[in-house]
């Protein structure tokens, strides 16, 4: 069975752009399961339900869970695997002798679950976790440059982490909405304006970016170019 795991960010960016409903149609095309972890659910729903701001958005997300578009998933050994990966991830980079805690439990729990249940991919918008998995040397450069201190890599721990997460595939909500666009799932937003389809894709990608997806302007132009055959 195919599995897509979602981190907090993509659900937020899609909800804030009022296209979270498209997940149901995407899931139909995917012919598999869309999962989130309990920790992600806490961030998306439990916390904002205790406040006034983003309460409506939390309820919209809760609706998706009740409707089984998104399902909360756990697995035996998840806690211990998460603890192990979290400890490694937060001891990969150091300033002087002080290890930098760069990631949080929920992000790593999603990673751990993906490994246990052999998910096809994780949908994750924030860049630190992605860089940690895909390009830790780049992350080290960012940390050093931005913190204005020389940050070094603990090569032993990094190697263990990279080995542990080998095979995990990461995509973003930007790629997901591009597919939704290709599949015609968002065609109801095509107006009778000139270049309406191109305009829709541009609006989708910029909408996702402006609600926190880590995609650059250059990448948006690239997707526009790649999708031209669909205009």
């Amino acid at each position, binding site marked *: 069975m195919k599995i897509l795991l979602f981190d*907090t*960010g993509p659900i*937020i*960016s899609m909800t*804030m752009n009022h296209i979270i409903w498209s997940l149901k149609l*995407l899931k139909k*095309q*995917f*012919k598999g399961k869309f999962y989130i972890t309990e920790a992600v659910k806490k961030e998306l729903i439990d*916390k*904002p339900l205790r*406040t006034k*701001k*983003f309460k409506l*958005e*939390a309820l919209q997300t809760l609706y998706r869970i009740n409707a089984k578009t998104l399902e909360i998933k756990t697995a035996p050994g998840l806690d211990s695997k998460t603890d192990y990966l979290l400890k490694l991830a937060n001891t990969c980079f150091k*300033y*002087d002798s*002080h290890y*930098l*805690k*760069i*990631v*949080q439990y929920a*992000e790593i729990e999603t990673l751990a679950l993906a490994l246990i249940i052999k998910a*096809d*991919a994780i949908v994750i918008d*924030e*860049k*630190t*976790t992605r*860089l940690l998995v*895909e*390009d830790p040397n780049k*992350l080290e450069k*960012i*940390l050093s440059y*931005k*913190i*204005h201190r020389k940050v070094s890599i603990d090569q032993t721990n990094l190697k263990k982490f990279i080995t542990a997460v080998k095979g995990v*595939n*990461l*995509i973003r909500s930007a*790629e*997901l909405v*591009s*597919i939704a666009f*290709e*599949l015609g799932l968002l065609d109801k937003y095509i107006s009778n304006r000139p270049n309406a389809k191109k305009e829709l894709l541009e609006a989708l990608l910029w909408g996702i*970016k*402006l*609600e*926190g*997806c880590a*995609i*650059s*302007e250059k*990448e948006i132009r*690239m997707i526009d170019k*790649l999708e031209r055959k669909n205009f």
Partner: protein
Amino acid sequence: MESLSKDVNVDVLQKIKKGILTGNVNNLKKITQTALNNASIFQDETSISIAIISYAIYKLIERKRFVEIEIPISIYRDIIKSLENSSLSISNNNQKRLKQNLRVLFESINKLDGRLPIYIGEILEKAKVKKAYMIHEKGISLARAAELMGTSQWELMHYIGKTRISEHISKKIDVKTRLNFTRGLFGL
């Protein structure tokens, strides 16, 4: 508290006090950066509180330049006194006294609510989001930054989307590869 973090925090508090007394906005701005770097590295409660306080005070003094308002001398005195006491508590490793002093500091800043044409209380809330963004910009994950600053990921995602934080992304996996992979997942 680590001794390196301790020294930086004491230094920051003393510089904030000096910044208030001289009204030097540029120096206050620099201090908030130092406080933030410290908070990003050590991520302890004290460093984070001081980062928020330094930013709130910087914004307060900056706005005072542009808006003709009266901040009561008594409140200035309270803030200066709390900064001194906090500094002393850190030097003496007195965590209990430090917590009390920081709470008084927050309360003093909050007291200004209603006395200004803007809502000072919101400055503290906005400071949390802004500081969380700045921590995330330094390479700490979004969820971790939100957790450290006591703000939500909803709030933070909404904020960072309006910045240029995503303009410098790794090219290890390019967007074409990622898109083609996603197409494969959906049978396209």
